[in-house]
């Protein structure tokens, strides 16, 4: 594979997006263009990128260490030179592959999901723009170029959350996402700046950074590490910047599947892995990250237990699962974290798409307590959702088991028992709330059955493919205990830190414990919800249902205060003090003039008297001057 093709991985979706956007505008302004055209163009892009990605994958597999393509100097000021560079190493190609693959699936799914929508072309324009940005993010060879993709995906997220922009809530959610991400980006930017200032002169590609990062003083590295992680917090919805993700579910379901579950939110994990050379030097920050991840996982899981909106449940589960990933990368087990990214992409995309299918089928009903008994009526969906639920609950042999278990194992290995405990507990909670949702949706009694909307084939095919993926993708990382070779670890050997390994027996015991935790969760859910009676008028409420009132708290503590300050600044300080001072000075001068104007009294004697005073003072002056 030629190096320059790396650029095309990004360019194809980008160009496709631009063409789609222009044709969409053409379509609504001038002449209608058929959806087929959009579909064709939209699907072509991620698939082509995927094919290119596969090409690079084999290239790397056959011994090429990395592909590098730097077409031009992006920015060169003084001796800071940043090239527009694309780096195809094992990590990025790994990311490219699963992004384009999942992306293609969700494109196909969306073609069905959105087919009635009048913003069809626009949707795919945004979608491909997102894919392009995401690919730029992972393929960039420099943190700054990565930042372009980083913000690009944030923008697309904003655009897609507010896809139905006439509704205020959607736009508000989009804004929330963007601003929260911006808070993270602020941290990210500060991190980049520190890095830039300390090592930028020696080059700012990852390679150069890795080589020279040693010259950065340790305390600065800590700042850099934390700042960059703040960026990851924003993008990957970790405490405390997670607040946007549940609201982001306002977007169309494929968006939630692609962006807010499978790909974009994992950018933070990717970023930490990409900067592993920094985090390797500052293990304390790594532990901090792991703790943040653990608490996010637990916290989100707790909230998810009481949610009623199907997509909100999935959103919180996403936060929770992202927490697991951060546990892994925080502890230096980058490849384990990425393994979970990989498997999570499958089952979470599957969950969302399944949920989307349910929502479509039920005429945009999202409350799980208004569903029920769908098992027989949507058998395919039932099956794939079962697979996905088992996967997320960590039941072997589904994909989630391998990756999640590995993370718990790593936590245990690093002797972070608290994290391990939290992780384990969260695993139980996870299986509980997922099966709560599952049972309420598909089982139960006394539900009201409504007419179902038919689900199109283009929605079903990706479901099946992903279900297969969710089942078997775990086997690429089959633990050595089971005689497998963890291919992910092998592939990402640069990113897997060797650490003390527990004995096989202990490992199996630990696996057993986590599976047991999962099963306990399922059991509790079964007891409580399998025979859920829809007649009972249950209203979820309480502090957990209300997400610990965090949104209200933020609104009260930050947003309202900022608005008050804003009003204060513009009304009191600007208009009241500064402008008033200026105006007072000028009107004061005019008023002084009016007072002085009284001297023009048209009184001859007064004038003469005034002259006399002048004459007299002249004389006095001369008397003194002449001595």
């Amino acid at each position: 594979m030629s190096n320059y093709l790396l650029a095309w991985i990004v360019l194809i979706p980008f160009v496709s997006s631009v063409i789609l956007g222009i044709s969409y505008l053409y379509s609504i302004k001038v002449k209608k263009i058929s959806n087929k055209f959009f579909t064709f163009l939209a699907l072509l892009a991620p698939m082509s990128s995927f094919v290119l990605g596969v090409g690079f994958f084999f290239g790397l597999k056959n011994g090429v260490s990395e592909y590098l393509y730097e077409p031009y100097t992006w920015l060169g000021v003084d001796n800071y030179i940043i090239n527009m560079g694309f780096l195809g190493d094992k990590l990025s190609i790994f990311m490219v592959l699963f992004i384009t693959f999942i992306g293609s699936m969700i494109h196909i799914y969306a073609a069905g999901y959105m087919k009635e929508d009048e913003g069809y072309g626009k949707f795919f324009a945004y979608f491909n723009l997102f894919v392009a940005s995401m690919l730029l993010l992972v393929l960039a060879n420099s943190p700054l170029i990565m930042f372009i993709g980083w913000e690009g995906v944030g923008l697309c997220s904003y655009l897609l959350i507010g896809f139905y922009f006439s509704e205020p809530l959607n736009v508000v959610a989009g804004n929330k996402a963007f601003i929260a991400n911006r808070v993270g980006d602020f941290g990210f930017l500060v991190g980049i700046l520190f890095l830039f200032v300390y090592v930028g002169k020696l080059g700012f590609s990852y390679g150069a950074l890795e080589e020279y990062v040693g010259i950065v003083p340790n305390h600065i590295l800590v700042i850099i590490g934390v700042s960059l992680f703040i960026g990851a917090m924003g993008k990957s919805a970790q405490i405390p910047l997670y607040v946007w993700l549940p609201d982001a579910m306002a977007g169309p379901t494929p968006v939630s599947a692609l962006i807010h579950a499978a790909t974009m939110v994992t950018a933070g994990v990717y970023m930490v892995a990409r900067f592993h050379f920094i985090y390797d030097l500052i293990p304390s920050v790594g532990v901090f990250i792991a703790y943040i991840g653990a608490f996010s996982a637990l916290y989100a899981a707790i909230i998810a237990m009481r949610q009623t909106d199907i997509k909100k449940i999935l959103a919180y589960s996403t936060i929770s699962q992202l927490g697991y990933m951060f546990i892994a990368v925080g502890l230096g087990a980058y490849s384990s974290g990425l393994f979970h990214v990989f498997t999570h992409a499958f089952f979470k995309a599957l969950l969302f798409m399944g949920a989307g299918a349910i929502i479509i089928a039920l005429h945009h009903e999202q409350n799980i307590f208004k569903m029920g008994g769908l098992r027989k009526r949507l058998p395919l969906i039932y099956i794939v959702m079962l697979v996905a639920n088992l996967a997320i609950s960590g039941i072997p042999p589904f994909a989630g088991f391998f990756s999640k278990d590995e993370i718990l194992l790593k936590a245990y290995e690093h002797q972070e028992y608290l994290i391990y405990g939290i992780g384990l507990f969260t695993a139980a909670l996870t299986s509980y709330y997922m099966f709560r949702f599952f049972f309420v949706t598909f089982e139960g009694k006394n539900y009201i059955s409504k007419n179902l909307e038919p689900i199109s084939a283009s929605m079903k095919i990706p479901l099946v493919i992903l279900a297969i993926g969710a089942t078997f993708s775990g086997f690429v990382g089959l633990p050595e205990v089971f005689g497998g070779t963890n291919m992910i670890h092998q592939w990402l050997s640069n990113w897997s830190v060797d650490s003390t390994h527990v004995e096989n027996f202990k490992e199996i015991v630990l696996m057993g414990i986590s599976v047991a935790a999962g099963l306990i969760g399922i059991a509790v859910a079964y007891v409580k919800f399998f025979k859920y009676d829809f007649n009972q008028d249950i209203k979820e409420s309480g502090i957990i249902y209300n997400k610990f009132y965090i949104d209200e708290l933020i609104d009260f503590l930050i947003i309202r205060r900022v608005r008050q300050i804003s009003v204060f600044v513009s009304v009191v300080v600007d208009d009241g003090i500064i402008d008033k001072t200026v105006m007072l000075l000028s009107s004061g001068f005019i008023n002084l003039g009016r007072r002085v104007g009284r001297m023009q009294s048209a009184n001859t004697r007064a004038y003469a008297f005034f002259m006399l005073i002048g004459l007299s003072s002249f004389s006095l002056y001369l008397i003194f001057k002449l001595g």
Partner: protein
Amino acid sequence: MHIGLLTFIIFLPLVMAFILMVLPISMKLTRNIAFLTTIVVFLLSLSIFLRFRLTDYMQFREFHPWISTYGIYYSLGVDGFSMIILMLITTLIPVGYLFLWKTRKSKGYWASMLLMQTGVTGALLSLDLILFYFFWESMLLPVFMIIGIYGSGNRIFSTLKITIYTIMGSLFMLVSILYLGVQFYNEFGVWSFQLSDLVQITIMSPTQQTLLFFGFIIAFAIKIPLFPFHTWLMQTYSNSPTGGVFILSSIMAKLGIYGIVRFVLPLFPHQYVEFAPYFMWLGVFGLIYFGVAALMQQNIKRMFAYSSASHLSLITAGIFSLNIYGMTGAAFLIAAHAMATGGLFLLVGTIEHDLGIRSISGLGGIAKKAPLLTVAFALMILSIVGLPGTNGFVSEFLIVLGLFKYNNFIGIVSATTVLVAASFMFWMFQRAILVKTDNNISKMKDLDKKEIIGIFGLAVVIIAMGLYPHWFLYKIEPTLQHYLVDILKVGVSS
């Protein structure tokens, strides 16, 4: 005698303005000819850009005696820094014309626009301080006319306010210029107001220099405007017509920055370095102050005024950062912000043209009626908030980097720029453009062909500058290096 290209660039609009005013032709013909004039000027300046050599000295010099008794010369020249702004001006003005096309104004409007162009390009290109002052004041008159005649609201008051405010500033500058000239005479025995001559003065005490420094700074600070000289801005922007606010925000404010770099920096290098930290802090303070104030504004133009002030404060911080990054970033942000803000004001102008003047709460749902306008609007906002991939990001990054190089803390504070603008811009976008409300917006029309051409040109440049900034930047660098190394003597990356 020899008349150079720069003279044509400066005076062609002036001559055309007079011809158009005197000839008894219709408004439409006037407008078309005026537009053609700006296009010609654009082509002329493009030829300058392409023939520009990569050096740090003044190029395309023109030098003729004017008032020889006082050594005042008609002296023009362009270097890397002014070339960027020249290109900016000559590119933006035709775009502005495309948007102003449909405004049913009189001939005087178009003549004033041309006069304004002469004023700004003249001020930009003159190297003699008196000549500079000459243009600097002259460009105020067309603004005065445009806002006063075609403005809205309390336009007369705000016109007088801007006039008096800016003239106050420039008069301070005049005293400083004269003082410099006299000092030069005292030292060398001949009169001169040439920049290249005045920098050679050595006999001034630090106190004198500091006072003169502030004499200049006040003039430029009012024009920019910096805190606390900004209160004219909000009223003027909200009351002036599209053309006026477009020129004011995207071009004239930038000339304030330009003035600091062109004149204050070489004339008072010591003071420049000495007071740089204060101005950096002032800039960063302004960035946040104006940003916060913008949040709750009801009038879009007023909000943009605050937004402008916020960004211009950042630019000011950048040029005082005493290293090449901050200065390059500032130069780049001048261009980026001019395009984005100019574009925004033009778009708001079309909204205003269709719907009349409304506050943010009086709008809403425009996106459905005018998707093209919305797309353009969004792009400009993205540039303003510094989204990577647009030119806004590159410049903000460089400025923040420059400040960071100076002092980590101020760098971190200035990095909040990514938050500040985003918060109010997106909120405004949500309320005014996207979300559907009960307001009657049936008169809203989407962009017409000319506007599409104009805004498309801007959009392409914005994206191109975001994706390949180096191509736009490398011609400035020698100039800025020259400033930093030879004049300020602080080195490129202190």
